[in-house]
């Protein structure tokens, strides 16, 4: 080599996270720069999550699986709004149209569609909130300290 073992990206990110949190942020003068230093700890933690998995692809897949279940549910109720919504290529477009239609139509099928899609969407929110917890904490600390 020159350097046969290149340092691993996660190690460098951890170095930056630790250094920002323990060395740099406590030494920053001024609210805005300090707020930025604290936010960046969260940005880099988020990067680590984004590198570990293809979040975008997993989300689409989860929602597509739920939409397959919705297809079974609406087989019994051939209202045109369900069929049209399910023709959308993007699972997010399809789910959006379905949920809007549920709000407008009500009824048992609507309830079952909502009960199928909501848990997936809520779990996606929770997972993303967990990945961005560092950003959230830094933001919240700044709001509390607003002056």
């Amino acid at each position: 080599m020159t350097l046969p073992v290149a340092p691993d990206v996660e190690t460098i990110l951890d170095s930056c996270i630790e250094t920002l949190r323990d060395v740099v942020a406590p030494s920053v003068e001024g609210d805005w720069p300090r707020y930025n230093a604290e936010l960046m700890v969260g940005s880099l933690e988020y990067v680590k999550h984004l590198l570990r998995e293809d979040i975008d692809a997993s989300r689409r897949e989860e929602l597509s699986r739920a939409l397959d279940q919705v297809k079974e549910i609406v087989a019994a109720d051939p209202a045109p709004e369900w069929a049209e919504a399910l023709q959308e290529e993007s699972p997010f477009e399809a789910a959006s149209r379905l949920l809007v239609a549920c709000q407008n139509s009500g009824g048992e099928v609507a309830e079952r569609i909502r009960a199928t899609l909501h848990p997936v969407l809520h779990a996606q929110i929770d997972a993303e909130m967990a990945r961005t917890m560092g950003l959230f904490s830094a933001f919240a600390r700044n709001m509390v300290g607003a002056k």
Partner: protein
Amino acid sequence: MISQEQVRGLEAHLSSALGEPCTLGRTDRMSMGQSRAMYIAELECERSGRRKVVVRVEQWGLLGGESRDEVRVMRALRGEGLPVAEVISYEPSCEILGQPFFVMEFVEGTSVFTRESLDPYVDSLARLHRLELSAIDIDFFEMPKGPRDSALLQVERWYDVYRSGLAGEPSPLVEEAAQWLRNNAPETEQPRLVHGDPGPGNYLHEGGELRALVDWEFTHLGDPEEDWAYLIAMRGMGVMTEDAWVAYLADQVGIELDRDRLAYWIALNLYKGACIDQTALGIFIRREYLAPNLLAIGTCIHLSALKRLADTVL
């Protein structure tokens, strides 16, 4: 953060606005104010001497606000005797700072919440809501026509902001919530001026005395309950429970809030938060402005509003 060239541009702008040569000293960005970049700037002016001003700069349409109406409403309300900072100048072009901005007089005071500062603050807010629209110089806001338009205009306003700032596909829960809000919009008796972002953290006080109401970018005509809901559920959560707020407002300003209607206006405000926060992600992803607070607003802050919204009404 502000380049040397921008400093010179700002000096020329301020000298012209103030009618005397001024030089700019220290310019520090404040950490409050997410929708606008806010700078405290120290000025040395030839005749009037030292003074501090606040420069409030737009950020690529972040959170869907723009300065023109904000400046107009601030000037009008200051004329009505409300505690509003004096706007010194407004620059609608992007030529000087890369974004439109306006400059206002710096108001001494803190926005850190204290209980004693709350009474005069809610009094002022109630006074804003009582202003007769026909008697004041504000004709630039869209007037709700039908009885449900105070709600519906807001639903569509924020829906447009959310849709036009979208990075990628729509968000099913935002879409569903928008529909719920359309379907459940309550009637409003008499449209009034609504501040749009009131509560602890958004007024300046000193020693219990109210010095200024701030952040007029979301001001519009609508239902005053929208403001009370915002104050209770968005900015006031850490200060009192919803029950305590309702009791306090009845006592302090004589407002009797209907809890079902309040729930609607809380949902509308959470939806508004989710919609405007989403704009930050687009600005970040399109690399228009790479500040890490935009990443926070566009991810977890957006999602925390969306989660509360979904838990509330969906």
